[in-house]
């Protein structure tokens, strides 16, 4: 497990990170969410060792991360970049070899990975001739080719079309299933919500929330329910303990003051007519995000 504990970093007089602590567990996808300038990139760079920290620790399985541990980290920097005049396959092979693979082994891996990412046709094209989306895929290959134990990806989905998002998401899930600890940041909260097992929310250089996605959701849920029925749901307004938020014929969204109230509402709805659906509404990640960063 990768653990950050009390990590602090200042640029000049400005404090970019203040006591940042969270865990990235193996076998799980951890979403890292925060606004612009919240400290995501700085945190990731510190984990990768490309940036020094002022204080705090970054440990892997209990011991401070060393340079040789980091050889088994995969990294996709926020600022994308590969050598423009290198061929795609050759480039990924080069990076795999820098991570310690033999030439033959590196070539096998790079070819397989690029094909999986849909770049099989472009192996011998220069990086600069690829479209932005394809360069992005090559960048992901660069982060994954050495089969890292820890993956740190800064905005891996930005600039990808929905199909490519699915391809990349699939690859990341596969890596997590194989036991890698995956930390990825994104502004696309819907994608994070769909993918991640754990969630870390950062704002102004401090961690505002961290933990399993479902736990966070439960913590922030407000007994909000959605009712879809055939009858007119107008009676809800006069029901005690119910606060109607949205209403349209048989459709209503309401907050209940207790679980008993919710059950009572359901029984009455069934008595009034056919109920097509009655379900608790979990807060979306976007809602949780807005709530915790305030």
């Amino acid at each position, binding site marked *: 497990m990768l653990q950050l504990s009390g990590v602090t970093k200042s640029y000049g007089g400005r404090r970019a990170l203040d006591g940042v602590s969270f865990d990235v567990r193996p076998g799980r996808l951890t979403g890292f969410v925060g606004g612009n300038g919240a400290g995501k990139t700085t945190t990731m760079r510190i984990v990768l060792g*490309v940036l020094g920290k002022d204080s705090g620790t970054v440990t892997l399985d209990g011991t401070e991360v060393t340079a040789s541990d980091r*050889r088994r980290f995969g990294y996709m920097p926020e600022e994308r970049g590969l050598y423009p005049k290198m061929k795609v396959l050759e480039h990924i092979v080069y990076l795999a070899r820098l991570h310690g693979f033999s030439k033959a082994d590196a070539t096998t891996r790079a070819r397989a990975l690029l094909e999986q990412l849909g770049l099989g046709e472009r192996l011998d094209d220069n990086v600069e001739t690829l479209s932005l989306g394809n360069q992005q895929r090559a960048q992901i290959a660069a982060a994954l080719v050495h089969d890292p134990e820890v993956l740190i990806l800064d905005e891996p989905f930005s600039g990808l079309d929905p199909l490519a998002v699915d391809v990349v998401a699939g690859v990341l899930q596969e890596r997590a299933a194989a036991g890698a600890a995956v930390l990825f940041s994104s502004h696309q909260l819907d994608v994070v919500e769909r993918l991640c097992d754990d969630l870390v929310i950062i704002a102004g250089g401090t961690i505002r929330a961290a933990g399993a996605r479902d736990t966070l959701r439960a913590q922030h849920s407000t007994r909000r329910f959605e009712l879809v029925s055939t009858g007119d749901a107008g009676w809800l307004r006069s029901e005690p303990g119910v606060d109607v938020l949205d209403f349209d014929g048989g459709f209503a969204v309401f907050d209940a003051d207790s679980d008993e109230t919710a059950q009572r509402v359901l029984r009455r709805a069934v008595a009034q007519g056919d109920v097509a659906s009655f379900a608790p509404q979990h807060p979306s990640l976007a809602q949780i995000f807005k709530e915790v960063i305030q």
Partner: protein
Amino acid sequence: MSSAPAAGLGAPQAIWLVAEREIASKLRSKAFVISTAILLLGALVLVIWGGFQAANQTGTPVAVTADAQQYVEGLPGLEVTEVADKAAAEALVTDGTVDAAVVGDSASPTGFTVVADDSAPTQLMLTLAQLPPVELLNPEGGQAAALGYIAAIGFGIVFLLAASLFGSTIAQSVVEEKQTRVVELLISAIPVRSLLAGKVIGNTILAMAQILLLASIAIIGLTVTDQTALLQGLGAPIAWFSIFFLFGFILLASLFAAAASMVSRQEDIGSTTMPITMLIMAPYFLVIFFNDNPLVLTIMSYVPFSAPVGMPMRIFLGQAQWWEPLVSLVILIATCVAAILVAARIYQNSLLRMGGRVKLTEALAG
């Protein structure tokens, strides 16, 4: 598939991988291959042209009347045309067929007169003059002095071209990595020092290969065109030049890499590499203006930045004692080590600072 080797990559392998990529990407650049071919071709043409000049050396054309025949008999360097009388000789001088005429003249104390158009050819006058015999105690040095200027230009220009070509190559390559941000990936895989060392070594290998190719073309060319006298004088200086160039270039390449790492865009390279470019130009101009000034040459031959030009010049001119190149080489290597340490520090501290130019004090402090 096996998983990544636990120990990762050793420093020597990492350095070599980086060096290998530097070399491969340069050899793939058409501009580089073509400019190298032109440079080598130029050197070849120069050597062969020199050979023909030496082989085709013809004498000064002179017209000689019958009564002056005795004075030019057996003299070297003259191409004699016999004419009937003074009038015929003057006609040939006027229309330019000959440079001068030697005609008998009883009024002259030497018994003859030289007729020329607007000035008498020096070559002819020296040949005809009654000079006292000269005994040279050190005949080798005499020949070298005449060729000194050419050798000075040769060493100076080769150093200037190769150092600035590969110096700017390494500078551009450093900024390319910074500008395309690939550097962040690289230094998450290998230590910054290995990256710097690989880049310096890769470019040094390319630069040395070019220097050795030039040197062998010069040596083979001189041998083939039978200019063995020149070859004897130039052999040792060329060998020393190659050795000095090796360390001199490592020194410059480290500084170029460090200077380039302080900027983020190709357009800004000049602002930080300018002082180093001056260091490369200086030996070229100094050796051209002062190749006959022993004091300046001696200073040049010990200052690390000009030693690759200054020391071979002094060896060529026979001014250096046997131990002098060795001392100068030690000074150069020591400077080289110091420069690498400072360069590594600047490089490490500047690599991830994007945007404006990094101040030297910040780059050194970290």
